[in-house]
């Protein structure tokens, strides 16, 4: 049930609670953590993309003065081939352990093999060079279509394809095949007046968070393990570490430090269990930091992919059928986001006949990790480019064709779910009415493109506790690490319920011992679900305070009402007390008030975005400049509009990087040759115009204030929007990402 739209706090733009500490450099990040007796750990990584480990000899490293301990996969408890559920889906435990420290094979350059703890990081680094590893080097397989070939080198002898509940007999690099089917695609294509079918290739890209992974681990005398770290979810760290170390969750405390970006990449654990192993071996606290090359080579990027899209439409622009083929690189172990890609590919449209096949394929690259709407950007690059071509063929405005086919409440997605109230059409209408779309765009080599995107968003568990202070403020205790301003957006929802200003809420993100279970900051769920828990906790506080006022006035609770920050009695007695004054009287009315809220909501409500971009192409060099960018998005209800705009802008910028220059570049041996921010070319502020973020509000019926997650969908449209703009500028359809200058020169026939 949606609350009244007349809000006092929601929709305003207070200064974020953590802002001053962050801009003055006082906020504490994992690398800042210090402790007496701290040792420093470094990880030895594989120089080969694919090799068998014949032997590991750590004796020379152990003999180096200053070295206190060396660990390898042998120090991990036996990891049989079993499945663990870590709150983000089932994970094969052997794969999880082997990705942390390789046991029998290395599957990508940068794969962790051993780790050293020493009295300083320089000694630890030197000791790594003294670990002797004997390898039997194997040929790497670096591309999804090659990995799917029957004679491709196999990464896992035991991996067999599962397809629609059946498991194949022979081992393969294809971990799984999924299929979604709706209607009769053959009949749908037969009804089409125009059919377009194209193939697309996208590169491996990294989230590029500015803060590398870090972890400090320490065992108390009583065996209590504490880990201070940068993570998107303290509880998922606890679960993963517990599984990998086979240690009870009750003996592990995870303390989330401030986080310098994650975008999905800080959910999987890498060095956290390694720091714990080193701490156990040495009996001292051990801090392990990654450098940038470690981050690129040793943590999960988002997959490269091969995609084929076929769409058919009538002369009037009605899409009659769509077919998608998605082959995603999982990296070294199964688990690419091909599932979400298949869910999202045609989700902006109401199409009667759809068939989608998805393949999860292992290759000799780091195991992929989530990255902002994982899978959906790859998929949308294909579908939104093909739709643009159909619109062009039919002479229909590209936004108009989206209005003709746009999904609405009650329409069914090809993978099953029926859409609740959604705001896709509204984003297209807002884009169409925006001055950007109506501005002239006739200059030579200038082009304009549009594209849309969908992300389903998730709910999951969140817990919030509110401790009410005697001065009328509240301490809000939460377990969601704050990446994008969620302390503010969660606090504001509690403030709205209690009729107090956002500044009267003191939010704290606390460790796993100090708050109820809370799932990761991911899936665009935090403002939605943890905000929902804060709403519930505040309602709990409100109920208890009504009881206190009733007690004070000796009236029935039903005769106390709360509005505009004032409790008052109705039906007879003329009593009134402010929220603040009542807080001062807890002592005489029964003691402290603590409210709590826990949720696992099912109504996350999907998010849609429609982007418009103008580009200029230098036909002599192949360089693309972004001249103007407008990103329209349905936020349901923007709790703190500045941070919604920030998410929209950030997603668009990461999409621009993905579109134009970002990619892992490999040599034939499978070594990444650009593992630095110098050569992995993310856009800088000098490469970007101001991104004009336009918020549309179609309230989500699954949240008391109508919130929809906003963090992920803005990265879905940019690649196709830019490709469509490049086509408009120079008449060449780019089907490979990134659209780097050399690829553009080739496509134009200049080289």
């Amino acid at each position, binding site marked *: 049930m949606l609350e009244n739209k007349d809000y006092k706090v929601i929709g305003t733009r207070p200064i974020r609670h953590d802002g001053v500490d962050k801009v003055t450099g006082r906020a504490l990040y994992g690398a800042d953590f210090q402790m007496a007796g701290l040792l420093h750990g470094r990880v030895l990584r594989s120089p080969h993309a694919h090799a068998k480990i014949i032997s590991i000899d750590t004796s020379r490293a152990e003999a180096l003065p200053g070295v206190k301990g060396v660990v390898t996969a042998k120090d991990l408890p036996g990891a049989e081939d079993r499945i663990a559920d870590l709150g983000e889906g089932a994970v094969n435990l052997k794969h999880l352990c082997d990705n942390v420290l390789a046991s029998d094979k290395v599957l990508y350059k940068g794969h962790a093999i051993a780790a050293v703890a020493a009295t300083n990081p320089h000694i630890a680094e030197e000791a790594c060079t003294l670990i002797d590893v004997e390898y039997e080097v194997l040929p790497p397989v670096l591309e999804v279509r090659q990995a799917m070939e029957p004679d491709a080198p196999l990464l896992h002898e035991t991996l067999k394809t599962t397809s629609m509940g059946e498991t194949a007999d022979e081992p393969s690099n294809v971990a799984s095949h999924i299929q979604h089917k709706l209607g009769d695609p053959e009949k749908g294509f037969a009804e089409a007046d125009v059919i377009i079918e194209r193939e697309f290739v996208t590169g491996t890209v990294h989230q590029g968070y500015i803060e590398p992974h870090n972890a400090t681990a320490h065992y108390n005398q009583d065996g209590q393990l504490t880990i201070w770290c940068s993570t998107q979810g303290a509880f998922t760290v606890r679960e993963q570490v517990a599984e990998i170390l086979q240690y009870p969750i009750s003996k592990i405390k995870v303390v989330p430090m401030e986080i310098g970006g994650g975008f999905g990449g800080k959910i999987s654990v890498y060095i956290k269990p390694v720091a714990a192993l080193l701490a156990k071996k040495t009996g001292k606290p051990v801090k392990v930091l990654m450098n940038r090359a470690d981050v690129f080579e040793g943590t999960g990027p988002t997959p490269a992919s091969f995609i084929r899209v076929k769409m058919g439409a009538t002369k009037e622009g009605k899409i009659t059928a769509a077919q998608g083929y998605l082959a995603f690189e999982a990296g070294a172990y199964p688990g690419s986001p091909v599932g979400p890609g298949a869910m999202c590919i045609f989700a902006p449209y109401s199409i009667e006949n759809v068939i989608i096949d998805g393949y999860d394929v292992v290759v000799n690259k780091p195991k992929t990790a989530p990255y902002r709407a994982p899978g959906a950007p790859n998929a949308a690059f294909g579908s939104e480019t093909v739709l643009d071509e159909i619109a062009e063929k039919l002479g229909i405005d590209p936004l108009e064709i989206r209005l003709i086919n746009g999904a609405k409440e009650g329409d069914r997605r090809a993978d099953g779910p029926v859409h609740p109230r959604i705001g896709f059409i509204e984003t297209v209408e807002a884009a169409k009415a925006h001055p950007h779309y109506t501005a002239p765009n006739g200059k030579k080599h200038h082009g304009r493109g549009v594209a849309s995107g969908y992300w389903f968003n998730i709910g999951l568990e969140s817990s919030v506790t509110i401790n009410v202070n005697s001065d009328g403020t509240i301490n809000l205790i939460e377990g969601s690490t704050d990446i994008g301003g969620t302390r503010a957006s969660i606090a504001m929802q509690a403030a709205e319920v209690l009729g107090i200003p956002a500044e009267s809420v003191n939010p704290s993100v606390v460790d796993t011992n100090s708050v109820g279970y809370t799932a990761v900051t991911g899936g665009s769920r935090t403002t939605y679900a943890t905000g929902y828990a804060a709403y519930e906790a505040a309602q709990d506080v409100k109920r208890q305070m009504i009881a206190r006022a009733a007690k004070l006035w000796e009236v029935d609770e039903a005769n106390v009402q709360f509005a505009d920050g004032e409790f008052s009695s109705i039906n007879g007695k003329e009593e009134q007390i402010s929220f603040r004054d009542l807080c001062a009287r807890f002592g005489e009315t029964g003691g402290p008030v603590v409210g709590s809220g826990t949720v696992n909501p099912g109504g996350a409500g999907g998010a849609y975005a429609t982007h418009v971009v103008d580009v200029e192409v230098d036909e002599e060099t192949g*360089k693309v400049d972004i001249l103007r960018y407008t990103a329209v998005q349905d936020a349901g209800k923007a709790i703190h509009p500045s941070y919604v705009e920030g998410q929209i802008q950030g997603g668009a910028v990461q999409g621009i990087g993905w579109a134009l*220059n970002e990619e892992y570049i490999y040599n034939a041996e499978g070594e990444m*040759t650009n593992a630095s921010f110098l*050569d992995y*070319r993310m856009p800088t502020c*000098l490469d970007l115009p101001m991104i004009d973020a336009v918020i549309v509000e179609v309230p989500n019926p699954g949240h008391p204030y109508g919130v929809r997650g906003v963090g992920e969908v803005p990265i879905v449209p940019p690649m196709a929007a830019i490709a469509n703009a490049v086509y408009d500028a120079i008449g060449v359809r780019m089907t490979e990402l990134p659209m780097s*200058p*050399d690829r553009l*020169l080739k496509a134009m026939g200049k*080289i």
Partner: protein
Amino acid sequence: MRDFSYIAANTIPEAVALLDEKGESARILAGGTDLIVQVREARRDVDWMIDVKSIPEVNALDYNIATGLTLGAAVECYKIYADDAICNAYPGLIDATKIIGGTAIQGRAAVGGNLCNASPAADGIPPLIVLNASCVIAGPNGLRELPVEQFCTAPGQTVLEKGEMLVSLKVPAPKSNSSSFYLRFIPRNEMDIAVVGAGASVVLDDAKQTIVSARIGLAAVAPTPLFAEEASALLAGQEVSDAAIDEAAAAAQAIARPISDMRGTAEQRTHLVGVLTRRALNGAIERVREAT
């Protein structure tokens, strides 16, 4: 990062003696923007860093309209582009000093250091080549001088012998009706390394219609930055025209021997040599014509 020893030299003879004594294990430290990173990433083994920043000669920055520029090897980029007279005289050099690294790097990095680092992609070197600059080198046997285009011998390698160091760069005074221009191609707008770099200097006749002489320098298309001698010579005596410039650009392309790497492909680089040579020449000509 491994341990190394730091020592500051106060005079040229002191620095030369130290270099001579320590040999291969020593390296001159000026801005350190390349050296420190290389040592930290274990790309260069150094036992001794000899800091030369307190030696007067390597900090010289003297420009005289008659005799030209003496640019000490350790003079930071920001000091060069802060000097209006130097900006007017050598705009091609200024183009480079403003794009090496970012603002913070330009506060430490020296053009002399850019030369000694001997990267094939160094932005500082093509402008020095096209400005006819020479290197003043001190060593155990005294001073010697050498044209900049002969200084680099391979990626990261120079002509410097045991005990030798770069003291300064000497740039001749600009001729009348002359100017220079440097540009590079990078896929982004800043904070990147040249995929290809091209510099040009031109001297026009008084009518500013005919090219009296020209010099073209290239980066990132061979193991060292190149002086495109034939391409330059083709322009002497030619009237300014697209045809003449195209011909020079084609000749510059002919000497490019690029590799394919993570920054660009060989064919892309060869193509860009043509584009950038044209743009550098046109840029320099435009600057002559704009000057009053």
